[in-house]
């Protein structure tokens, strides 16, 4: 181990850490606002990466049945999930005695975006859009899944205990993995690099992709900061995080806050997927382990502190990198063992301050 090796390992660790940081932020965000420990965060990573890969493969112009298999699975998934949400909403709405016109209006509101996404995918598929346009479209496909997941899985039990929400999360994780298998198939995908350039800095080679990962992560963190500090919507979310009941009394919709939060989480997951897609082979179930490392990082911040979560993510990335250098057979053991002293320290520090 000399300086050059250490610097390469650090760079690799920080690059992975930047992606874990995005996921850790999303995990903290979701927990703070909705009290949901969102295990399925990683699934959005796989969804994002594979959606882009499927758009890259392109699809031929043809009849409906010739073409339906070539559209990215997420487009179908979005449509199906939205339809389920409409059915659930209508049943509940009619029980509450809402009129037919109101129900139709609600249904149209839920379906508008998925149908638009579907139409664009249909139109764009055979036209081979440039990579950046396909990436933006990928974000547009995966992000609306977040609010729908919240709507279907969490909203009905939004006031339950953290433990119940966690159990729901486990279910959501398995459901999303299974749906991933149905809609993407079992094969692995790899995306083309966004930027093939390589820069030589001393012994280090910094790839363009790594720079994009850094820039995108930092830009997103800055955007989140601006959103939470300067916009009304962001402040409303923070108010919900501090005190749900108080926020509701002030006229902030906690349901709306939950949907927005899950939208943000899905967006950050999909973005992570776009960033990690060119560096590794992504399978429909690859997201879990990536998301789990983001979760470990979020634990460093006690699921409450954003800066601590980011530092935790960088630490996990670097630890993983050095761990695989020194004892590659024990890498995962090293990473997940580190969480134990952190949990001990956290529980000594805070003790049992509530029954949850």
């Amino acid at each position, binding site marked *: 181990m000399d300086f050059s*090796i250490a610097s*390469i*390992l650090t760079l*690799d660790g920080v690059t*992975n850490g930047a992606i874990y940081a995005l996921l850790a932020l999303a995990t903290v965000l979701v927990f703070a606002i909705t009290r949901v420990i969102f295990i399925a965060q990683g699934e959005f990573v796989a969804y994002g990466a594979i959606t882009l890969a499927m758009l890259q493969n392109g699809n031929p112009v043809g009849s409906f049945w010739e073409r339906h298999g070539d559209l990215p699975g997420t487009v179908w998934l979005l449509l199906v999930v939205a339809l389920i949400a409409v059915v659930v909403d209508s049943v509940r709405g009619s029980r509450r005695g809402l009129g037919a016109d109101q129900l139709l209006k609600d249904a149209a509101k839920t379906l508008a975006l998925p149908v638009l996404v579907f139409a664009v995918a249909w139109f764009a598929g055979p036209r081979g859009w440039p990579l950046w346009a396909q990436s933006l479209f990928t974000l547009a496909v995966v992000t609306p899944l977040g609010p729908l997941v919240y709507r279907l899985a969490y909203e009905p039990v939004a006031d339950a205990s953290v433990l119940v929400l966690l159990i729901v999360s486990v279910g959501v994780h398995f459901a999303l993995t299974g749906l991933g*298998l149905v809609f993407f198939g*079992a*094969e*692995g*995908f*790899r995306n083309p690099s966004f930027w093939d350039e390589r820069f030589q800095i001393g012994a280090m*080679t910094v*790839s363009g992709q790594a720079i994009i990962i850094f820039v995108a992560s930092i830009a997103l963190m800055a955007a989140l900061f601006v959103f939470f500090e300067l916009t009304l919507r962001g402040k409303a979310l923070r108010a919900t995080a501090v005190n749900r009941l108080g926020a509701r009394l002030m006229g902030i919709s906690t349901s709306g806050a939950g949907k927005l939060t899950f939208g943000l989480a899905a967006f950050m997951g999909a973005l992570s997927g776009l960033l*990690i897609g060119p*560096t*590794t*082979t992504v*399978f*429909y*179930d*690859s997201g879990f*382990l*990536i998301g789990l490392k983001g979760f470990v990082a979020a634990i460093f911040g006690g699921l409450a502190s954003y800066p601590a979560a980011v530092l935790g993510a960088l630490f996990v990335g670097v630890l993983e*990198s*050095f*761990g*695989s*250098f020194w004892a*590659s*057979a024990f*890498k*995962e053991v090293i990473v997940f063992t580190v969480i134990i002293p952190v949990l001990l320290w956290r529980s000594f520090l805070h003790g049992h301050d509530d029954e949850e």
Partner: protein
Amino acid sequence: MKAFRPLALALATLFAAGAAQADITVGVVLPLTGPANGLGIPVNNYIKLWPTSIAGEKLKVIVLDDASDPSKGVQNAKKLVTEDKVDVLVGSAVTPVAIAMAGVAAEAQTVQLMMSPANLPAGKDYWSYRLPQSNAVMAHALIEHMKKKGIKQIGFLGYTDAYGEGWLNDFKAESAKLGGPQIVAVERFARPDTSVTAQALKLVSANPPAILVVASGSGAAMPHKGLIERGYKGTIYQTHAAASRDLMRIGGKDVEGSFVVSGPAVAPEQLPDSHPSKKLALDFVQKYEKAYGAGSRNQFGAHGYDAALVLEKVVPVALKAGKPGTQAFRTALRDAIENMGRTVLSQGVVTYSKDNHWGFTTETGVILKVVKGEWDVEN
């Protein structure tokens, strides 16, 4: 509810009667999902092309997915032997699962045709036969190739699981026997890992003239690319679990010029006419590509083909001992495979014996070179 009960009863008896009929039941457990699906899917593809009857008995095939997970594989195997009373277990295509299933096969006294070169302690494979070539047989071909190229040292980058460990041990033993290259650096990675930068760094700094990557299916491309991205310029070898087109699909130009050891079934056209497996391998390729498209042939589909060949040879013998579904038939099947003698398969020539359930002889390994996204047989 009351009216429903007799109906259910009637249905149940119907099913029971169906099971009592002497169909040969084959229970298949394969990784159709999970990191090793690249191995399981092609086997299943060929199983779909199996004949519908063997020696006049109808063939009933039940395929279950083990999701590349040993505990799921054991569950499936247990279900197959207890509920479906299968005569033969086939699978799995991934080593850790195949090893786990062998325990179930032994307990239930049912023949297991492994689709993976799984190492088992002596005596534990009494009911298990492997259809893929053993690591030792394939290592033999690799070592001969390395010796010819004058490679004296190699690095090792393999899975942290039984497949990686098996290869490491067999390669060491085989290399010592043949006077082949020394392993100078050993690095590991896990199937779901997203990066091998650190491992690649360590291997590249040890700078052996060649590196053996031990990984399977679509998972074999990531470590390969990791080495190239870290500036490795030497020769990269891959094992027979990587001999599918996924390597080229995902690896792209980074896998160009690397060597993959494989059975003869992947490139039969380029084999000399004297090769015993040429005819069967051509037959396999023709049938497989007719169903799944040109260029779709692969190492694992051929194991599915060979499993049917073995069954066709031993079932008529075993039928003399008892009806399908009985323990006598299952035991006779096991004995028949052990005594079937020299048998030519699409993947080489097997001779199983009491002490050898590996079968394949050392001439079976063929070294393929990746040239412009195609396999090229090295002579």
